[in-house]
């Protein structure tokens, strides 16, 4: 009997212990607090920026914020949470990823009322603060689901000191740009530095398509189930230009693992670097004291049908999951976080603001980038929005684009392979 009792007690203890170990650890949670899951890793300058906003918000409103940092793979944490009915109140990240993954499935809350409401200090309308084209990227079904806190573009980056030394002006056409590259090659200097990453390799074909064929043409290539869009001779021209420009890349670039290529550029081993406007944030501590961050838009191509003034704008910002327990608190926090003083603070992390009216506050290192983002001209999305077609982009386009840029295939083979692969993909 004693032994049986001992057996039962021990079993009960072990079961409780097991559940304690695996169910525990969550600790006490404040039901009235705002649950905010952040894209930025702990310690990143933008995480520190966000923490300051949270501290101020808690102090000013008395609302507690449960802040955690799932990091760049935030959607891997958000997906099971939403699926289990434990959605956070607020998340942030890249608009295109957020809309492609959550927005398309109707898992976000529209924020039109926030846009139409007032700013935190009540001095104006909330949506009037933003640069044109930055709030509409998260638009879906005629509503906005996303509030941007910074805006990016991709463009050519260079060291202004180097341009001054050479007496160069910003190239406005592709021919002018190539003339500069030829001059550098003659001197034995590498014109273009880059990292070998599919994401960056894809910039070239995308930008040539943008300038030669115009916004939406690249998207059409990926979504035309007949493949007829690939027969446009301008597509072949864009592929040919990718093939041609690769001879100006820094020697051995295929071996550059990010960030080796951009560091090589920052250290003066190459003159131009086609990349996102976050480059200053990533390289500010790796450049010489006399280095001056400069940027210019992808030059116009003679005979191109694309608007040479068309600018890429991609945004990062906040979204509220549809099943958030405290959507009003989330909106209140967004309203608070998007005040001019925090946008000025954001620019200290080398990230461009998404606000108008801060021209006098723009630091030198992002002045050119800000000028591109706010310039007159139509807005288009990064890669013509094709990152939202993640499977086509990653498994159909990338492999063939890499082969083209590596020189493994001709432009004609590039077009015919992608046409066949796209048709097969869309009709499977």
């Amino acid at each position, binding site marked *: 009997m004693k032994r049986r009792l001992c057996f039962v007690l021990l079993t009960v203890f072990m079961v409780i212990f097991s559940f304690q170990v695996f169910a525990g650890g969550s600790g006490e949670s404040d039901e009235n607090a705002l649950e905010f899951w952040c894209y930025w890793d702990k310690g990143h300058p933008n995480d520190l920026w966000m923490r300051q906003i949270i501290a101020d918000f808690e102090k000013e409103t008395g609302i507690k914020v449960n802040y955690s940092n799932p990091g760049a793979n935030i959607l891997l944490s958000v997906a099971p949470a939403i699926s289990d009915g434990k959605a956070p109140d607020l998340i942030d990240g890249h608009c295109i990823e957020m809309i492609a993954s959550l927005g398309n499935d109707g898992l976000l809350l529209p924020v039109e009322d926030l846009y139409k409401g007032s700013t935190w200090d009540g001095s104006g309308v909330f949506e009037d603060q933003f640069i044109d084209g930055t709030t509409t990227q998260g638009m879906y079904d005629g509503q906005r689901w996303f509030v941007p806190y910074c805006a990016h573009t991709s463009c050519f980056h260079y060291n202004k000191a180097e341009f001054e030394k050479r007496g160069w002006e910003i190239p406005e056409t592709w021919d002018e740009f190539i003339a500069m590259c030829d001059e550098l090659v003659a001197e034995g200097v590498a014109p273009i530095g880059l990292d070998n990453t599919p994401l960056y390799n894809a910039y070239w074909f995308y930008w040539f398509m943008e300038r030669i064929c115009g916004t939406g043409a690249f998207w059409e290539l990926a979504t035309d189930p007949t493949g007829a869009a690939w027969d446009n001779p301008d597509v072949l021209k864009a592929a040919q230009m990718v093939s041609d420009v690769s001879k100006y890349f820094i020697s051995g670039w*295929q071996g550059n693992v990010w960030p080796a290529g951009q560091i090589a550029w920052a250290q003066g081993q190459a003159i131009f670097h086609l990349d996102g406007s976050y480059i200053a944030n990533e390289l500010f501590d790796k450049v010489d004291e006399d280095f001056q961050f400069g940027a210019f838009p992808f030059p116009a191509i003679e005979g191109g049908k694309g608007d040479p003034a068309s600018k890429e704008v991609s945004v990062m910002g906040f979204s509220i999951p549809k099943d958030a327990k405290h959507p009003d608190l989330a909106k209140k926090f967004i309203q608070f976080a998007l005040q001019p003083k925090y946008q000025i603070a954001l620019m200290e992390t080398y990230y461009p603001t998404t606000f108008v009216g801060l021209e006098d506050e723009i630091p030198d290192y992002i002045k050119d980038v800000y000028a591109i983002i706010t310039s007159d001209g139509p807005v288009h999305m990064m890669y013509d929005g094709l990152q939202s077609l993640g499977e086509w982009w990653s498994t159909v386009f990338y492999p063939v684009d890499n082969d083209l840029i590596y020189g493994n295939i001709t432009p004609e083979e590039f077009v015919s392979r992608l046409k066949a692969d796209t048709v097969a993909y869309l009709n499977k």
Partner: protein
Amino acid sequence: MSNSFKRNKKLALPFLLPSLVVYILFFIYPAVSGLFYSFFDYKGFTRDKTFVGISNFTEALSDKIFWGALLVNLKIMFFGGLFIFLLAFAFLIMYQCIAHFKSTFRALLFLPNIISPVAICILWGFVFNQNFGLLNNLLTSFGLEKLIVAWLAPEYIMVSLIFVIVWTYVGFYFVILVSGVSKIPDSVYESALLEGASPVQAFFKITIPMIWDVFTVAVVYWLISSLKMFELPFSFTGFKPRMEIWNIPIYIYMLGFGRNDAIYRIGYAAAIAVLLSIIVMIFVQISRKLMTRESIEY
């Protein structure tokens, strides 16, 4: 069966329970769920899923990237395994020949196994860098500039990756083989040497046959771990793994979650994971059949 054995069996049950719970929660349940989801079109953000039968499996069989990733797996398994075991045996011979510092020798070889694969990749990323990397600088200092290449370029990246894999894991398999050798009685070697056997003959006629069972286990373990290897190839080229080294586990991750370019085809990824499990089982069975020998008792 004695009463005391029955009593002890009952008493053992509560002690085994925590491990059983862990095993069910973190292995059995995910494995069964994976199999279940492989028959669905499922994104993972909601509970909505569509039954698609075996179409995820048939799609995988006509997926060029799947076959390319399997080829990467096979290259790692075959070439990595070949060099790992050749070197492990070479080190074993050295180990048997040296009289001192045996534990230091063993510890040094095992060292890479206790380093995080991400840290290993960062370290080797610096070594392989074509501009300031140690390898190309060494080649320069030895006057071998002709051999300088971009070690992480598409044409060399597989060689570089396999080199790092061999560097990392050779110590682990060496230690397994050493554990087999340590159970061979000294008297067997002594009598062989007395009868005129050379150290090389002793190695091939005594050591290898007598550790064959351990060697078989090591090979099977390598087959399994090489086919499901993830961290090292995933971290080898920075924040986004280069497509030239996508193996099946990386492809599963990319399909299920993606990196910058979200795909979220959890159902399809699960189907490929099921296929990977089948591939692992096939290779394990083949290797066990090929390596089965009469066991030597001593």
